[in-house]
């Protein structure tokens, strides 16, 4: 049944639209990616790039309407999910795939204790008694290193701090030992010291349990620390894909490079201390109901040529194995390395 090349999760040419008629927003325009057991795929993008919709579509929790899946496939261990009935999807959620949300306070139910919410899964999926399920819930809280788990299990979400709520949500997601975990900005709302704790915890649990992790984030720093592979999204497309080392050393898409030049780094002295000057990407991301013709990035791109306004660049291999970029001039960028050339007309002719 399992072919050798079968991935844990495979997304193939996924397309999602919101709304109808003239105002139709093309939110996903052919997203393809895959994740295997025990590895971390980071989906990197700014707001509106489609990363959260990708996650929701994979989990089968996209609101339809207003959303509409207009094409593509999502396969979990080879099984097609988009056509599957709700009964089957329900069974897979929690058991095989689970999700961690950004805002734990709104993801947890305020009127039930944290333990009760974790225990529900053991009661309904494993047929445990209330008491046994609560004991298991406490064990889960202990696993995510909540101090005093036995007492804490009876407390309500508002009695937990932000970091502990996020831990509780991780415990809930891992309760039934899923093979795939999707984390949508799991540490974004938290302070840096707590953020570091949460990312470390996720990484450790992934390694111990061999879980495949899809990490959705906008933070280039977090990605550099934990990702095996990275997919950069822009206007509903994956514009670049590579392993972490390759992506940071030799970005092949001008958008990826622009993002890296935009981040003020804690290890760089900056303008106050004669360090690097930020080179922001000019302009704004496009409206998803009016994505520019050709390459969606061309109005903001310093290297855009005529071909960029005419033809959509396909996501294709550029140099290193598994390094793909959707730019007509990707090979040149890869060859140049991370230092952006001083002049703007490098790719003329």
């Amino acid at each position, binding site marked *: 049944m399992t072919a050798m090349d079968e991935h844990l999760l495979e997304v193939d040419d996924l397309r999602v639209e919101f709304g109808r008629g003239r105002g139709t927003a093309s939110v996903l325009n052919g997203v393809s990616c895959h994740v295997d057991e025990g590895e971390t795929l980071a989906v990197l993008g700014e707001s509106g790039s489609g990363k959260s919709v990708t996650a929701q579509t994979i989990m089968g929790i996209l609101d339809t309407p207003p959303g509409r899946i207009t094409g593509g496939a999502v396969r979990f261990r080879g099984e097609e999910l988009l056509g599957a009935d709700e009964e089957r999807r329900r069974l897979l959620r929690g058991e095989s795939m689970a999700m961690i949300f950004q805002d734990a306070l709104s993801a947890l139910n305020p009127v039930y204790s944290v333990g009760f919410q974790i225990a529900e899964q053991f009661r309904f999926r494993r047929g445990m008694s209330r008491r046994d399920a609560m004991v298991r819930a406490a064990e889960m809280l202990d696993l995510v290193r909540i101090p005093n788990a036995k007492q804490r299990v009876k407390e309500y979400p508002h009695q937990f701090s932000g970091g*502990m709520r996020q831990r509780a949500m991780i415990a809930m997601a891992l309760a039934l030992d899923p093979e795939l975990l999707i984390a949508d900005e799991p540490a974004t709302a938290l302070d840096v010291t707590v953020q570091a704790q949460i990312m470390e915890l996720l990484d450790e649990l992934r390694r111990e349990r061999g879980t495949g992790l899809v990490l959705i984030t*906008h933070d280039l*720093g977090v990605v550099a*620390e934990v990702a095996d592979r990275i997919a950069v999204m822009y206007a509903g497309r994956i514009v670049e894909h590579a392993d972490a080392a390759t992506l*940071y050393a030799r970005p092949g898409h001008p958008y990826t490079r622009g993002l890296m030049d935009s981040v*003020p*780094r*804690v290890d760089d002295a900056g303008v*106050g201390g004669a360090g690097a000057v930020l080179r*922001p990407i000019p302009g704004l991301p496009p409206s998803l109901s009016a994505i520019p013709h050709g390459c969606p990035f061309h109005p903001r791109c310093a290297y855009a040529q005529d071909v960029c306004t005419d033809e959509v660049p396909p996501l294709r291999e550029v140099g290193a194995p598994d390094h793909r970029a959707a730019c007509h001039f990707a090979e040149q960028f890869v060859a140049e390395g991370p230092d952006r050339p001083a002049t703007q007309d490098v790719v003329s002719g």
Partner: protein
Amino acid sequence: MREPVLSVRDLVKHFPVTRGVLFRRTIGHVRAVDGVSLDLAPGETLGVVGESGCGKSTLAQVLMRLIPPTSGTAQFEGEDLFAKRGAALKAWRRDMQIVLQDPYTSLNPRRTVGDIVGEPFDIHPEVAPKGDRRRRVQELLEVVGLNPEHIRRYPHQFSGGQRQRIGIARALALRPKVIVCDEPVSALDVSIQAQVLNLLSDLQREFGLAYLFIAHDLGVVRHLCDRVAVMYLGSIVETGTAEEIYARASHPYTQALLSSVPVPDPTVRRARIRLEGDVPSPADPPSGCRFRTRCPKAQEVCAEQPPALGLRPGTGHATDHPTACHFAEPPRLVRAE
């Protein structure tokens, strides 16, 4: 250092915690700001960093005279800031302005950009005569990189980054000497954030502004600031030039904070100082050193004596900048590539 434009000494702001509706009684205090001293020189950027709840936004509000301080003093160009009343207070407000964090809630949705940016001129008509206002507003829009033609548009017609530019234009209108920036870029995407940061440094050069730059993002603060003050639970635990703080942090909290920030480069692997637990409640801060409950170096003395912010000669690890730790020492590790 040059004569500071703003000089704050032992500033304290406590919020009462009350219980009961009919018979309200005070059962405690949230010590949001608990003895903060700082100086801001003309034309410089002082960064105030800290995690949520450390009191940095309360500090901004007290200094803007939006809420009264509990105790402490502040001098603006040598004059007592908290003693100003009436006309003197109004005149001072021209010199110190604020840019707020959330560009979605800090602009009135029912007023046009022209109204919003021109409102300071309504309050201080002596700055721009009535006939001249439209031109002045358009100039301001151009200075912050917006299209002056868009003067009749409403905030919802702009993106987040553009709205933040509107907020900056409004703060610039009266040509202030000091602008307090309270998390001005934390709601923005990275590519837009970089645009706004560059704008802020251009404006500083052009108008000789001093910024009190409040942020939780250590990368942003390092990029923009000349000097940095690190806050924890209402007080400053370490202060110095950006170089001193980022390269030679000597307070264990600063060291932990810096080591927690992920660096966008997979080839850099830094040793991480892991802090356990969460920040204690400012309503019931720990005795002695406030950081001791999470501090890897904590000893008995830390629970008894609150360490003063100062140079620490005689500890064997004299630091070159003020720090509030009994066991301050320069970082041992730097990085392993």
